[in-house]
């Protein structure tokens, strides 16, 4: 077997990653375009960023979106972590198949169906739609993603530490907070981030479940995009991309560092034992 990457593998990596990144790079470049015509380069300018900051509708929508994403990601992380514990720990119980079905189905369910069904539920129970209904809708599908992420973390962990604590008489809830949670924390954080960005991103479900006064950023972007591509939208998109990229990279560095530290502690503990 040849060692090192073959030309075929290098080519497919280069082509594959250019395909993934080129559109985003072009989008970012053209947000600094002086010209109003999106595809004609008219020199470097940051005027569209200024324009964007003066667009009150856009700023309002961004504020709604951030609050929705924060609330729904937090609730989804709590519920999703509980669901992951159930999937990984509760063994067989009646209704388990339905439960895991309800966790996996939203991952692939078309958004139009999720949106429509939740809207009809809110109408049926006479719930006024707006800010909170979007949060509930986002929580529902995001918690499934959190459950999957946390569950994969739970699957690869040594239960003996947890069992030792329980055997020594530590109450289950305290064991969870003192032992289980710190170990699965990277998964929980990744789950929260994922839930946050999913909510930040969602257009379809928010459009169905929103009400008067709660317009999210994707809804605002969508209605402007339908009228045509503008450098201002490029500027908004660039900021969002930058925000998410920095967040994801920072989280991954922090969790990796924690992970290395944890493994070092484990090794030290094992050496002492």
């Amino acid at each position: 077997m040849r060692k090192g990457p073959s030309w075929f593998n290098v080519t497919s990596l280069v082509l594959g990653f250019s395909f993934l990144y080129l559109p985003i790079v072009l989008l970012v470049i053209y947000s600094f375009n002086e010209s109003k015509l999106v595809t004609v380069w008219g020199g470097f300018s940051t005027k569209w960023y200024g324009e964007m900051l003066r667009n009150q509708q856009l700023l309002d929508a961004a504020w709604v979106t951030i609050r929705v994403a924060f609330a729904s990601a937090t609730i989804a992380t709590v519920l999703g972590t509980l669901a992951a514990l159930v999937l990984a720990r509760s063994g067989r119980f009646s209704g388990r198949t339905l439960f895991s079905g309800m966790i996996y189905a939203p991952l692939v369910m078309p958004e139009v169906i999720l949106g429509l069904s939740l809207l009809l539920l809110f109408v049926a129970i006479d719930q006024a739609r707006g800010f909170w209904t979007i949060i509930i809708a986002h929580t529902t599908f995001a918690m499934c993603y959190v459950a999957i992420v946390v569950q994969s973390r739970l699957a690869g962990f040594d239960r003996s530490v947890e069992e030792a604590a329980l055997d020594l008489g530590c109450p289950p809830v305290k064991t969870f907070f003192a032992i289980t949670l710190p170990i699965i924390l990277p998964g929980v954080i990744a789950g929260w981030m994922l839930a946050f960005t999913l909510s930040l991103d969602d257009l379809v479900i928010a459009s169905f479940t929103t009400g008067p006064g709660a317009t999210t950023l994707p809804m605002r972007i969508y209605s402007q995009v339908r009228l045509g591509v503008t450098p201002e939208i490029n500027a908004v998109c660039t900021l969002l991309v930058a925000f998410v990229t920095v967040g994801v990279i920072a989280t991954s560095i922090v969790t990796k560092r924690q992970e290395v530290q944890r493994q070092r502690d484990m090794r030290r503990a094992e050496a002492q034992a």
Partner: protein
Amino acid sequence: MTETLALGAAEESKAPAKKRRSLGNWLLIAVPYAWLLFFFLVPFFIVFKISLSEVAVAIPPYLPTFDLSEGWAGLRENLSSFSFENYLFLFEDDLYWKSYLSSVWIAATSTLLTLLVGFPLAYGMARAPKAWQPTLLMLVILPFWTSFLIRVYAWIGILKNEGLLNQLLLWLGVIDQPLTILNTNAAVYVGIVYSYLPFLVLPLYATLEKLDESLLEAASDLGCPPWRAFWSITVPLSLPGVIAGCFLVFIPAVGEFVIPDLLGGSETLMIGKTLWAEFFNNRDWPVSSAVAVILLLILVVPIVLFQNQQQRAQEKDA
């Protein structure tokens, strides 16, 4: 590390399967269970119920509404006024079944295209030096975190008649007339392949990465040419990843709304778009509910297959 895992697994199998469940354990199950039942499962029944109603000029815009306060007599009367008329309408009007067929067709074609693009990428990642792999993985995941809407939007500027792709091709002298790509099905394919590529690459990479390279070495030692070793070893062993990835692309792509709406044209018939138009433009809630119910029925088989596959993979890991 592997030893401790194996020990843990052995201990687990020794432990009695039916432990007495404490109250706390029941609560743990009950909270997420109840949430999903109420906000995920129950809504489907409501969609089904409303798909049997009639459209009306009212708030909410359908009749009859479900009202428990009328008691049993009222409920029976409601039930008797339910009808399958909306479903008949879906079959009579060829817009709907054409939308379903074309959605399945577009989703299947794009899944195949995604596989063609994604397989070499996943393979290249799995064969890259070990030190690069975390970075490459991060690079695949990162676009997935950035907004879906933005990634679709980025293609409008590229695919437009006066867009960057046409400018490049004209400049290279490949074409003399700009190609019309935006607002055609071709743009929809590009959009789906682009947006769903990470969903396919990730599971595929996971299986390819676990692939035992000594099998390939053995094949090559025994004189098997590389392409044959690829077909008879790599491809069959990567099949679980291929299947999981294809489901993750195909199922959501069938009901996709944003991509056909922004990149597709008037010729692009997709059921997600039809449902959206029925709901937001025509305000016909019962018909859009019926559209959703049929879409769900079409997707039930792939969804169940996907779940079984996930569950098997999960049990294998445990």
